[in-house]
């Protein structure tokens, strides 16, 4: 079968970084082709070249066997190539429908006015196909990250592309939404659409990918059939070594000192009368569906948003947390799920970002900054977390998504808080790094830190939590010990709506 896309010897460098080094790739009609590799392996870059976002330094891109020069996103569209970018690319002030049709608005009278109604109808049709319940008129800025991701997917679908690139489309989706997406991918496949699928979620890849291309350090490693290749060997190809799994040994922490207690936290309809305790040395998992209010609860406790009611106790002493500054001064840290907007000053360099919450530690004589110490700390964490960056002076925005996430983690490790909220800490992180993060969580807990992990990936919750709290619609609907927790039990609690709960 003639491949739709063939990429040969593609090279692409950025200031100081060789992102692609003779990369290869081929894509056949009607297949789902997974692209795997560690953070920073060059997956997104390769796809951006194909989508006309970056221009290549050298190498060849062939479409239907003919060499092409894809100079712009528009050119890629004209060739039938659609892409869902790893980072959301939406206009927050515009509605879902307006976002989906940006650049291709249906014209009404005189070819001058926009036919809003046609746009709405068409958007609704795509949403229906996706099982997505969403008013096409809603401004996307008011949507959750998950819903925004769904809008991105709807947009990509609306192009009717021959080649559809999905760069970590499910990083923010829940299981149902993922199932809907996979159903649609199935339909597209049967219509002969070729799909490139990038994800760090191995189970997903197993489910839908036909072939896999593995990349490492910008280089092509191999292309293999998914069905015939065991996961372990794929991972070994990716990381170039064998990974050892960390087992959850469910230590009993019920007797440990309570370091943090929240009572009756309420914030609008999003967090309602939520109470919980957190003990020294434990890892407390917060499970729930997207939009259950876990992020809101964490932000409320952390002082990032004002609360309507509720109290917080640190080591049994009531404290007033009105701002993140208060929280941090009480030894509480929070890693946001949205690193680009809330986690990092992406225009600043690696070391500064790592030092940001701890800046006062690096001050001498009350005002002067000890730059050498910051640099040393930065280097230490780059090494410890294996962050892929040319130097600690690199601007964070130039790093790959996964490496950015590691920097967020590093900054809170350096701050040395006794309580740490990790909100979706492994979003967009490769398997190798994930394992490192789990090990890290365990180490921190063993050191006596109290950890909250918010995750929408149930396997992750199950793997690391010593105790699990489940939220639904802003309320805490149940508690499970790590040992008794299972996907089924969690899902049951996660869907226990108010009526059911009071009954």
């Amino acid at each position, binding site marked *: 079968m003639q491949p739709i896309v063939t990429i040969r010897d593609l090279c692409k460098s950025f200031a100081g970084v060789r992102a692609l080094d003779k990369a290869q790739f081929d894509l056949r009609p009607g297949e789902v082709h997974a692209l795997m590799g560690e953070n920073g392996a060059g997956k997104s870059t390769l796809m951006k070249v194909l989508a006309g*976002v970056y221009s290549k330094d050298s190498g060849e891109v062939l479409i239907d066997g003919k060499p092409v020069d894809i100079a712009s996103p528009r050119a890629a569209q004209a060739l039938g190539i659609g892409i869902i970018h790893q980072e959301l690319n939406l*206009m927050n002030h515009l*509605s879902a429908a*307006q976002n989906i049709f940006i650049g291709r608005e249906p014209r009404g009278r005189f070819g001058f*006015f*926009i036919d809003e109604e046609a746009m709405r109808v068409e958007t609704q049709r795509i949403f229906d196909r996706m099982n997505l319940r969403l008013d096409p*008129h809603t401004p996307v*800025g008011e949507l959750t990250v998950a819903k925004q991701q769904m809008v991105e997917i709807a947009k990509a679908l609306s192009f009717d592309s021959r080649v559809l690139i999905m760069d970590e489309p499910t990083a923010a989706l829940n299981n149902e939404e993922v199932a809907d997406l996979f159903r649609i991918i199935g339909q597209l496949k049967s219509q002969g659409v070729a799909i490139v699928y990038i994800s760090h979620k191995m189970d997903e890849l197993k489910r839908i990918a036909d072939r896999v291309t593995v990349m490492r350090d910008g280089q092509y490693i191999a292309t293999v059939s998914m069905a015939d290749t065991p996961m372990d060997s794929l991972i070994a190809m990716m990381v170039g070594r064998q990974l050892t799994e960390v087992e959850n040994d469910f230590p009993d922490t019920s007797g440990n000192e309570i370091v943090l207690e929240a009572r009756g936290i309420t914030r609008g309809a999003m967090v309602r009368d939520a109470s919980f305790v957190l003990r020294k040395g434990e890892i407390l998992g917060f499970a729930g569906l997207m939009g259950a209010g876990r992020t809101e609860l964490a932000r409320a406790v952390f002082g990032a948003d004002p609360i309507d009611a509720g109290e917080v106790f640190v080591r049994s002493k009531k404290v007033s947390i009105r701002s993140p500054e208060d929280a941090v001064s009480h030894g509480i840290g929070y890693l946001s799920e949205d690193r680009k907007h809330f986690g990092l000053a992406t225009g600043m360099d690696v070391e500064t970002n790592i030092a940001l919450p701890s800046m006062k530690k690096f001050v001498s004589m009350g005002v002067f900054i000890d730059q050498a110490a910051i640099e040393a700390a930065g280097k230490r964490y780059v090494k410890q977390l294996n962050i892929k960056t040319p130097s600690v002076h690199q601007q964070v925005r130039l790093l790959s998504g996964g490496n950015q996430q590691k920097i967020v983690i590093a900054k809170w490790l350096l701050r040395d808080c006794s309580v740490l909220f990790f909100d979706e800490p492994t979003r967009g992180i490769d398997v190798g790094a994930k394992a490192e993060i789990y090990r890290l969580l365990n180490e921190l807990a063993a050191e006596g830190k109290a950890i909250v992990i918010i995750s929408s990936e149930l396997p992750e919750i199950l793997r690391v939590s010593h105790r699990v709290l489940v939220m639904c619609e802003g309320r805490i609907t149940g508690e499970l010990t790590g040992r008794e927790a299972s996907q089924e039990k969690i899902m049951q609690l996660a869907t226990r709506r108010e009526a059911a709960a009071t009954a």
Partner: protein
Amino acid sequence: MTTPTATTAAAATPGFSLRARLFRPATRQKLLAFASLIALMVFFSFASPQFLQTDNLVSILQSTAVNGVLAIACTFVIITAGIDLSVGTLMTFCAVMAGVVLTYMGMPLALGITAAIFFGALAGFVSGVLIAKLKIPPFIATLGMMMLLKGLSLVISGTKPIYFNDTPGFTAISQDSLIGDLVPSLPIPNAVLILFLVAVAASILLNRTILGRYTFALGSNEEAVRLSGVNTNFWKVVVYTVSGGICGIAGLLIASRLNSAQPALGQGYELDAIAAVVIGGTSLSGGTGTIVGTIIGAFIMSVLTNGLRILSVAQEWQTVITGVIIILAVYADILRRRSSNKH
């Protein structure tokens, strides 16, 4: 999440029932935006018996026309998250070019009008190219254009006003009253009529057309628009060109009002225009804004100025008070939006 804003492009799209529209947060906010204006007017009516007289109201309307049209021009640019410091001197430049065509060259009125708008659009086009293609920040590109145009106006006019005495009908553009001819009790000058026509046209352009859509989109997330395959540079140039053309209309209005093109006038007017836009609820960070708001903002500015004059407040205090009211009006708008977002 980014600060939520109610006046979004999306919210401004036409809805289906009037009721539903009236109760949308965006609409409620627009209605509330009148509040500051009404509050000011009520205050001045009580403070001075002269304030509410027809003559004075007409002169408020008249004095809003130029700033209102400039503010509309700015609204487009500001919605794209840009800024235009050149609107004031661009207006003057257009007036001078009308003078060149009408007085120096003796062409017919229609050509003078065309010239003003054409040269406005041309200058806007240049700003647009500087900003979109050469990536010069709007603040600097338009600061440079401000000076450039100011100098050119002086050069072209020989640093002297150009009078329009030989063009019969020129003063009518601004000073006569078509409405007053029909309804004598409503002697609203044409300048105001033109302001409203420009406002309606601008509103349609912003809310119903591709240009408007991209204007909002550019201000919301330019990179996303670009990645969607839209030629963002092209559209940005179009936005500045349209804005420049509207400044040309302001140039005609002021020239017609003064029966002359005053080449030294213009600098400083951009701040009034931008203030009107922001008081009207358009965010300087782009992506949101309405023409109605801008018009209300322009009226707040001129009611304030007029009222303080009518009250014979000492001029230095007028300046102090205007500064304070600008801040308060924008703060009121911020509070309003914050609360309308809470529902």
